[in-house]
């Protein structure tokens, strides 16, 4: 069983700076997708039974990098053409902007989380792989040789992305906390059980728009709009990988 118990979305860096200075201090050196993903994750941590042991599934951005990193790319290109490359030194912070999934590591460092983890993402439609993996981790009934159940009790699914890395202009961070045990999802005051993710192959659709976080936010909006009963949510084609349709079945009770 996988129950959605908390979620958060972050879109505004200035709001984080103003209202959550501690969070801002922790995230400011990263690029926009990681800043927003981490801020959203911190918002759901209070609902977490134990942030040290929650399985973390983190989606890397489809638009990685930053405006600083792209400017650095131009510097490297100029250096190659005018023979000054040997003199260049890169700011290590900008190197971090190129690395794919530091949000997972940064979360682990902040909360001392050494649990099993999964880094996904970077391509269109991977958000739904993250959701599938969440259900797998919570449904798995693995028992190790000592007889200890090693299945996850909670899974934190987090993602951050931006519209255009060259500009670092606008982005979204989202975090969803799932539990094996039924607990009400605060915005609805009801339990939200994720039943399954269904896929069907379809002819390639080029309108797919790679974004790690936008699709999950739209799913959350659909859940919040559903009062009760079964929700059969068809993922908009632009949020898929373009190679297949995705349907998510959720029970709200």
């Amino acid at each position, binding site marked *: 069983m996988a129950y959605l118990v908390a979620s958060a979305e972050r879109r505004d860096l200035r709001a984080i700076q103003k209202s959550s200075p501690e969070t801002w201090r922790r995230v400011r050196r990263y690029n926009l997708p990681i800043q927003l993903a981490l801020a959203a994750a911190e918002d759901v941590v209070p609902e977490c039974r134990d942030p040290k042991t929650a399985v973390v599934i983190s989606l890397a951005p489809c638009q990685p990098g930053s405006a600083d990193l792209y400017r650095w*790319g131009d510097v*490297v290109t100029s250096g190659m053409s005018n023979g000054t490359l040997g003199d260049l030194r890169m700011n290590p912070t900008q190197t971090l902007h190129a690395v794919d999934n530091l949000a997972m590591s940064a979360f682990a460092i902040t909360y001392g989380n050494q649990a099993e*983890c999964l880094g996904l993402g*970077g391509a269109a439609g991977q958000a739904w792989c993250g*959701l599938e993996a969440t259900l797998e981790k919570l449904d*798995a009934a693995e028992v190790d040789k000592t007889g200890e159940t090693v299945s996850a009790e909670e899974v934190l699914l987090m993602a951050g992305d931006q519209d255009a890395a060259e500009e670092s202009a606008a982005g979204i961070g989202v975090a969803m906390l799932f539990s094996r045990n039924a607990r009400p999802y605060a915005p609805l005051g009801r339990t939200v059980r994720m*039943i399954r993710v269904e896929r069907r192959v379809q002819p390639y659709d080029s309108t797919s728009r790679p974004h790690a976080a936008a699709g999950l936010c739209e799913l959350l909006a659909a859940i919040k709009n559903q009062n009760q009963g079964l929700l059969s949510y068809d993922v908009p084609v632009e949020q898929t990988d*373009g190679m297949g349709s995705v349907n998510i079945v959720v029970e709200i009770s």
Partner: protein
Amino acid sequence: MSGAIEDKSGDMRKRRVVITGTGALSALGRTTQDLWDGLISNRPGIRTVERLVASGICVTTGGEVEAVPHDQVDRDHEIANRAIDDALMAAKREAANCGFIWSTGLDTFQANSCHDFVHRSAGRCFSALASRFVEPKRMIAAACASGTQALGEAFRLIKSGRIDACVAGGSSVMLTPFYLIGFAGLQAVATDNGDHPSRACCPFDRRRKGFALADGAGALVLETLESARQRGTRPLAELVGFGMSQDAFDLNRPCEDGAGAELCMRRALADAGLAPQEINAVNAHATATYLGDLAEAAALRRLFGSDWKHVPVSGVKGAIGHAMAAAGALEAIVAAHTCSTGIVPPTVNLNEPDEGCELDHVIGEPRDANAQRVLSVSFGMGGQNAALILQRVTA
């Protein structure tokens, strides 16, 4: 339908997962056999890369994949695709019957011959590669642990009964001034200081000074033992355990005692139902960074306790460099060959193990250890750790 695992019966958990095909493009050549033969011959593939010399940067050595021209526009896709095709051909499998769990690493940033800035998205490369496979198609993003994590996820998906066969692994095209200057800033790569270029990367050695960046791709076909037998395919090795962990320590360096690394190894052992004493050899991450090698050696000594002097340890990065997202997959291929042959290749460029790096290193020539069970580990930037256990296929 996917998501919820339908069958949680004991029978599903007893499914055995084997490797039936491999493909490898590395600095040692264009095939798996080139990789294995080079390692067994203690031959380094790292060399001076002329385009880096021409660029004037402080790092001019690397693990170049010469099979695909460096200025080919779709080089990232081509390197990966060749490895994937080789693995499918060896396994006698079609992509249309396999899932795809893969890492294409980081985006490629480079200047082309016209000095234009070229950005190629790793995500788009993944999507193009994935188009001929069936679900699940998962892009792994876990820094240098990506290749090993891809194999681990594929292993679990097959073992749980979700799928019967899968291509898993990783590819990376990062041997560019952009990344070399960046990693030099983090003091992680070996800069030139008059050494012979092929000796730039010396894992566990007292002269070590960082890794040599490399391009590469490693692909493995994983399937159930039952499926392999039905098709009359002889497996190369069996995957029996996988573990992940996070250091939760620092973004740029491992904790010195290797606690996070040790944790993922112990999880892999627990997953396999094995004791440390049942491991016959280790394929180490062995990047040749000062702190990384110390932490890894400490973790392995603690894991094996008093037996550490009798478990042969070997790493491939001295020969082929650090192929990032491909590294774990290439290393798993080597580990599978060790299981199959019993032979542990030497760690190329390791001559004098450093104080603190004491292990049962394989130095200078391969060792016929009759190794049937191998632990293969990867540790990523940020503290993401992954471990696999492979073993010789028995009846």
